[in-house]
């Protein structure tokens, strides 16, 4: 399988560990169901990044599933968390949103879906560790502007729509500052109950 995905690795790293480009995400160890949903979304143009939309256009779904499983099974170490230049209050705002949310603005804690250790849950919820701040901001922005959509109900769109620019900067910085957990594997399906329904998690 490694030879079949050599078209992907200059951008995503040999084992899907990511590369020095801050907008190119890590793939390794994310739930296979999540990765597969993303590949389908790129293939059908629901998620837009033209170089990937083009590569996947004529690949069969079962083959995309295999690619997803391949990268889900890789376990390269998480990168060391980069030094951050954001201020202490911003970091605290990020921590609050990730761990407690903001009930007044109906923002659930990120951890209520992405898991208490932020390692995600099978089959459709990705972990949030090992992602760089630029990538996280870009993705939250893409949901707000409608260039990234997930299967309906698109719960992540509902969350992103309630965040301000400042919230986005804060959560992106806080997430990137978290040390790697000893066990980075996503939780079992049904390990905890989501605050509201997500289409990505339905099957």
């Amino acid at each position, binding site marked *: 399988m490694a*030879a*079949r*995905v*050599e*078209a*992907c*690795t*200059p*951008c995503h790293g040999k084992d899907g560990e990511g590369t020095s*480009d801050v907008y190119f995400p890590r793939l390794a160890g994310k739930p296979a169901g999540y990765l597969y949903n993303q590949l389908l979304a790129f293939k*059908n*143009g*629901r998620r837009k990044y*033209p*170089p990937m*939309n*083009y*590569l*996947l*256009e*004529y*690949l*069969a779904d*079962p*083959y995309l599933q*295999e690619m997803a499983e391949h990268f889900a099974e890789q376990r390269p170490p998480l990168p060391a968390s980069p030094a951050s230049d954001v201020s202490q209050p911003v970091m605290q705002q990020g921590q609050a949103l990730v761990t407690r949310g903001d009930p007044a603005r109906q923002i659930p804690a990120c951890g209520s879906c992405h898991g208490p250790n932020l390692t995600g849950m099978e089959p459709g919820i990705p972990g949030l560790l090992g992602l760089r701040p630029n990538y996280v901001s870009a993705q939250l922005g893409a949901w707000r502007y409608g260039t990234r959509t997930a299967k309906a109900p698109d719960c992540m769109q509902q969350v992103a729509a309630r965040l301000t620019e400042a919230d986005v900067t804060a959560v992106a910085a806080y997430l990137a500052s978290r040390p790697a957990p000893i066990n980075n594997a996503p939780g079992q399906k049904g390990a905890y109950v989501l605050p509201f329904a997500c289409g990505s998690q339905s099957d």
Partner: protein
Amino acid sequence: MRVPSRILGLALLSLLAAPTADAQQQKSEAGGEIVKRGEYLARAGDCIACHTAPEGRAFAGGRAMPTPFGTLFSSNITPDRDTGIGKWSADDFYITMHRGRFPDGGLIYPAMPFASYTKVTRADSDAIFAYLKSIPPVNQKNREHDLRFPYNNRQLILGWRTLYFSEGEYKPDPSKSAEWNRGAYLVEGLGHCGMCHSPINALGGTSQSDAFKGGLIPMQNWYAPSLTSNREAGLGDWSIKDIVDLLKTGVSARGVVYGPMAEVVHNSLQYLTDEDTKAMAVYLKSIAEPASPPPAATKLPTSESSLLISLGKTVYDARCASCHGAQGEGKPPHWPPLANNQSIEMESAVNAIRMVLNGGYPPSTEGNPRPYGMPPFAGLLSDNEVAAVVSYIRTAWGNRGAPVRAREANELRSAPLN
């Protein structure tokens, strides 16, 4: 999808037989069979590619087709009575396919390849119609075309028709075999290969005498090589097996498909029967011109081009040789050979440059469901390095193409990817 050989036999008969035999055949063809045959023919015509929007319902139209004159939107051809072709008769449908006119006589834009479909027999047109009548109706209104003045005036199509459209069903050539005629019927008719593989003039038309002589597809910036010149994609010195492999699986010992041709194999050609694919191969091999024009002379001064080519070799050895081999021999069928590969040597270097910039996967097909891919190098190589490596592969190992300039690589960076 396989069509029973008996039906195929019938199709062949209908192609070569007199009109009365057509009528008899229609009467004897039970409802289910005509629908199945129509489904197969719709595949051969690749109707689904244009008439289905991304993630849209099959045949409900609405796909945007950018042209130099504005954007066209394909029509809903499901049997919905209000928004599709539910009220059409088989005669109406034949007039569209054969004459490029709506039932009320209105002119159809040639983006609908009626200039090729005019060759389709009445019996085959009726079968496609029967199939389209059998699919689920979708209520979806056609989107207005978004064409600039004066192209939004359909009367202009008359001029195009006078120049480029000659109406008429395919006339079998009695001096050739039934197999050759079947291949010609599919390639010139339903396959509408000439729509891309012909020089595109300012009017967006292709003229008969230039049919299959190759052209740059407007708006997409891919070059569809000539199918008649052995210096381009003429298949004169390919074996029948390699042609069949290419059309049916997307990969072969001689080359691979990519870009718009990957779409054609993915949505259409892979579904054709072995007999039909072989017939197309026999015909394609026969139309390649034995004598070909002399190679293009280099546009670069020798000193400049030799520098470029030595940089190209460095890039090649570091970035490409692992898949395409130190001598450009490849590991066919999955990693195509670059040595002695016409599609790299031909005068237009557009495709080679774009492959280096964008990479690609051949399509998943039944014969090659898990293709190997090539990474995009747009982010890894400078314009100069792209020009260098393309110049190198076009001239190394006995290849006889001409070097290319960094400016050409730069211009193609902005080519649309979808």
